[in-house]
């Protein structure tokens, strides 16, 4: 189900309320890159995501917050079908990337994941050299015409990930030898090397110290110029710092979504307010 974009805002708000259950706030955007409608996820007999609908706009950073086990990571992993790897996981509903249904039977997940990249909670560089880590994506997708082109891609990706100056003299050393923060930036460089449209970040800073976290946050802000970013985070300050929109998940439901400053200053839903003011979570 796709919402008519031509409808006036007030009317659309009504439509949303009528169709998308309990979510408070405007879950649509003018220029969506990804649209999720009535997504439900089951793990065996557990209903992990209940009727979630959400738009992710072009060149925005959307933060997904909520207490542990609320389904925000699960929702994020639906966006590039990483949940396919979990045997017992069933996804229903509709998720579209640029209007194309990504759960279509005929859709190949390999190009999908090239378009929707992912950065994980724990830095997970390959046990290969720094160069090979970044070059891996372009190599498997055949993006570089020549060795020079590949070298440029690697340098460009590392520069954009803010890591080039730190590693340019030791590209052949193992990526696992870097510090935690550098490893995570290496993983980001690896992801952007295949030029995805969307980058999903699943608590990218939870294993990092404050200085490394600050660097990653800065980086996220810069990456917004070229990519659409969805970030799951446990830190509300981080959500407030890096995102333009924020969605609050609670027990598998998307409770509230809206502009980040509005969510944090003037939450509409009681649960959101309780979480943000630190009454639980």
């Amino acid at each position: 189900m796709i919402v008519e974009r031509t409808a006036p805002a007030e009317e659309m708000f009504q439509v949303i309320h009528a169709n998308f259950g309990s979510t408070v706030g405007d879950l649509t955007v003018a220029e969506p890159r990804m649209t999720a409608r009535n997504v439900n996820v089951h793990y065996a007999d557990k209903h992990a995501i209940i009727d979630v609908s959400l738009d992710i706009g072009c060149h925005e950073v959307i933060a997904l917050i909520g207490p542990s086990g609320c389904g925000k990571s699960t929702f994020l992993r639906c966006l590039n079908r990483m949940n396919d790897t979990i045997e017992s996981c069933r996804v229903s509903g509709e998720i579209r990337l640029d209007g194309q249904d990504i759960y279509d039977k005929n859709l190949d997940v390999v190009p999908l994941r090239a378009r929707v990249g992912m950065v994980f909670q724990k830095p997970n560089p390959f046990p290969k050299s720094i160069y090979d880590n970044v070059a891996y994506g372009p190599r498997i997708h055949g993006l570089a015409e020549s060795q020079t082109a590949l070298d440029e891609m690697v340098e460009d990706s590392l520069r954009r990930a803010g890591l080039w100056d730190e590693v340019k003299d030791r590209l052949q050393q193992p990526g696992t030898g870097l510090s935690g923060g550098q490893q995570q930036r290496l993983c980001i460089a690896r992801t952007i090397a295949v030029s995805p449209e969307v980058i999903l970040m699943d608590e990218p800073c939870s294993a990092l110290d404050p200085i490394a976290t600050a660097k990653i946050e800065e980086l996220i802000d810069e990456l917004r110029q070229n990519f659409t970013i969805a970030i799951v985070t446990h830190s509300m300050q981080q959500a407030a710092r890096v995102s333009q929109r924020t969605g609050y998940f609670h027990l598998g439901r998307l409770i509230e979504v809206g502009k980040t400053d509005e969510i944090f200053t003037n939450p509409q839903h009681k649960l959101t307010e309780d979480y943000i003011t630190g009454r639980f979570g």
Partner: protein
Amino acid sequence: MADRPITTLDKVNASLARRYAKERRFRRAGLMAIATGLLFVLLLFTSIISNGYSAFWQTHVKLDITFNAEQLGIGDARDFETLSSADYAALIRTSLKKIFPEVRDRKERRKLYKMISTGAPLLLREILISDPTLVGSHHAIWLPADDDIDMLVKGQIDRTQPEDARRLNNQVIGWVDRLTENGVVEQQFNTTFFTAGDSREPELAGIGGAITGSLYALLVTLLLAFPIGVATAIYLEEFAPKNRWTDLIEININNLAAVPSIVFGLLGLALFINIVGLPRSAPLVGGLVLTLMTLPTIIIASRAALKSVPPSIREAAMGIGASKMQTVFHHVLPQALPGMLTGTIIGMAQALGETAPLLMIGMVAFVVDIPGGPLDPSTALPVQIFLWADSPERAFVERTSAAIMVLLAFLISMNLLAVLLRKKFERRW
């Protein structure tokens, strides 16, 4: 302070002594277990080594040999045919007669000639065939002594026993002593033991044939079991859907690992020899049977190695759009390979030491020739040990132990290789 209330700390302190005593007892029990284990290993090794080390030396006697054309019965011919069928034993007889001219009785002379191994004429034949110009010349040549003489020189025959209870009578012992005094008796490194095939004569018997047979069988096993095992493990672990069928397959593989090896031998006999019609006693069939036996070990070890690769690596690869195949072959497999190799080497070591299934497929035959290929009849090293252990000659006792030492050396070096591999490729994340 006597009526001070009992605190938590008092209770903790009261129980401390008992807790520490328990720990000490457990440590002592553990140490004792290890000591007992080591003791038995030590016993095993001392018994084998003390029994077997002397087999690596063989008593030789230096004889003056004249390659007399007349005695050889070859006339003026020097072609291969004539030289092959010449009477080399006559040369040895002449030489011995010269040393012991007083021995005239026929029976005694026969005993005298028996002191030199029946393989000695063959040795002379080889020398002459490789250089026919030696005819007419005179040489001092070291020739292997008979196994009884060898035993006497090595002190395995008790001279204090009554004469009729001994393998050698006083007269022969006297001859040997005289030769020893002349300085023409010497223990030399026993190369025959490593190069020759089996023989009825202990001094001519060696493990060369058995080792070659074992190597051919292991080669077949490795070439089949490693790729099949690894491919099975990868498919089951990474690609197969988790359903009742794969569960069933998994249970069956685990059960196969516990099947007695002789059952695999029976299967090999029925399948490879009776149905497929492969030759009996062939290392090829042995290798096939050992493959069946080793496969479960390799599959289980490989699956464990694949399981131990952290899922984060898989997610990382898939997160940037690697296909399942690329994920497995670019990232998972390189990480799991050391574990797989370790499992394979352990499996191969197990296969090398296996005897029972080889008995079933006829690799237990008396084979003198060294096999030239995996289809030639052959024995295997453990089977050779089994055969020699059955032989009555005293000289085969030490050869049995020596063959066990060689087998153990192979097994230990294979296990060492597995340990080294594991150490070298220890987790890198």
